């Protein structure tokens, strides 16, 4: 296992009112993303525990593009990864943002 952690300044606060949301499952080639609205509006953090060791650079690129594109201000993402491919990671992150942007608790 490898732990990775990223912090990014963000342009704008993520939309919606939900406090937290979760998408995905931990399985081979899959991951879960827990997103929580716990940070200041101009910050975003991503914490990763991954079964695939040695892919820090790829994660960095994936997270960088994701933050750029979705501006998830105020959100902390916690990821348990079963060795998912980068496109799956991008998709789950986007799904997490969509879910937390829905109305609800």
């Amino acid at each position, binding site marked *: 296992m490898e732990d990775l952690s990223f912090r990014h300044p963000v342009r704008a606060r993520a939309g919606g009112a939900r406090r937290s949301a979760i998408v995905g499952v931990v399985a081979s080639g899959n991951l879960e993303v827990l997103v929580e609205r716990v940070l200041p509006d101009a910050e975003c953090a991503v914490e990763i525990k991954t079964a*695939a060791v040695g892919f820090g*650079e*790829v994660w960095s*690129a*994936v997270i960088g593009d994701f933050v750029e594109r979705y501006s998830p201000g105020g959100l902390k993402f916690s990821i348990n990864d079963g*060795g998912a*491919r*980068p*496109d*799956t990671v*991008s*998709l789950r992150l*986007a*799904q997490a943002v*969509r879910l937390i942007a829905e109305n609800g608790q």
Partner: protein
Amino acid sequence: MTSWQNNRAARDARIAAGSSVARGKIVEAHDVTRLLEAVVRPGDRVCLEGDNQKQADLLSRALLAVDLSRVNDLHMVQSGVVLPEHLDLFDRGVAKRLDYAYSGPQSARIARMLFGGKIELGAVHTYLELFARYFIDLTPHVALIAAVSADREGNLYTGPNTEDTPTVVEATAFKDGIVIAQVNEILETVPRVDIPADRVHFIVKADKPFFVEPLFTRDPAAITEGQILTAMLAIKGIYAPYSVQRLNHGIGFSTAAIELLLPTFGERLGLKGRIATHFALNPHPALIPAIESGWVRQIHSFGSEVGMDDYIRARSDVYFTGPDGSLRSNRAFCQTAGLYACDMFIGSTLQIDLQGNSSTVTTSRIAGFGGAPNMGADARGRRHPSEPWLRAGAEADPDSPAPLRRGRKLVVQIGETFGDKNVPLFVENLDAIELAEKLKLELAPVMIYGDDVTHIVTEEGVANLLLCRTAQEREQAIRGVAGYTDVGRRRDRGMVARLRERGVIRRPEDLGINPLDADRSLLAARSIKDLVRWSGGLYAPPSKFRNW
């Protein structure tokens, strides 16, 4: 005095020798090795029918058991090296030289044996190429073939999996060769005559039906969101703008996803009747929903698929069937159709390099190519015009006068940027090149050449290589859809952005597709069971695909 009929005399001698173990043309299963020892000569070119589906498995076991002092050093000329026995022949010394086209399940072992010098390799062919050589310089002396049934005269019914048999028999029987068929049963009258009796010299009733691999069944349950997104991009970004009606699909999950999206996503885009109406394609179970929804007018097939017989029989408006009602497939004709009568090939591969060359060969696996290099090639000669062909030609060469401009066949590589076990699809250099060096091959085993490829589709977007004007643009267009692979991350971001502005690269949002909509609920069938339902119970999947 010169004799001009030596080969005929030799053939007659072989038949006479073989007849000693036969009653009429019929040989008992336990006598087959004796028959082969009588009929086959050292150094013969032998076609042991191994297609990518149907296998003359009894005959391959019998050949493996021959007395080496009587039969040895054979030159195997067969399209498929699929059964372990096919390679055991080389281990044992029955065979020495090999010319083939496809080796799916034996790909790792064949690589080891090539490295070990156990096999003297002629060449790795495409199907059409090997078939062509059957008539020029690789004509078999003996063909060992598989059929469903025979009558006592030797008329053969090859059934839905006719595949290569007519071609092999044509080349062998009309050039003084010997044709030996294994059949599942001997009947008074065969359901239809696929091979006339005068081309068949011996028949053997096998103790069990010949083995057929269900090679074209993709379980919809295993299709991922990424594959669905990629399929959506292909439909909206290629099928729709080029109005592709006549085409061939590969066997991967991405194209299975396309087949399953036609009646849902495709329907919503109003594309029914405008795209995907005529196929050169095996009877893919995944196409059942599209057929049932009225999308598909006609399909010609290379081979058949396990479990599809009753469905095909009941849908003879769509498939080619014989007077008996069952499918008639023919690999040579279908390959030709794919090459000359289709406007698009779309399929997956294992590796794509920066020029767009692709290969399924890796340093430890030599899978061969089967039909893909013919399907995925732009036949350069004269061709009839069609809308997609003309449009692609115009994109590639906008400046030539239209009446003189060649069209282009659409050759589309589709895949996810990372494959199984997170192996990247895009590479700086193909493993095929390294392999060619190691084996001292004059030609690297490239499957589809980059200059034939017109589009690459990944979950990141569609790259239209027809619109690239320089090698550098082409490279950046490929990098621009290569996602987070090393190749993708080393892109020139500015150039990729400019290519996107020109429409060379189109992202999901450029096509009006939200990646979050790429959901399995879009699939017309999400399980094999759904396919059975769509077929009205006519599709009978093999046990390994069931969960009921």
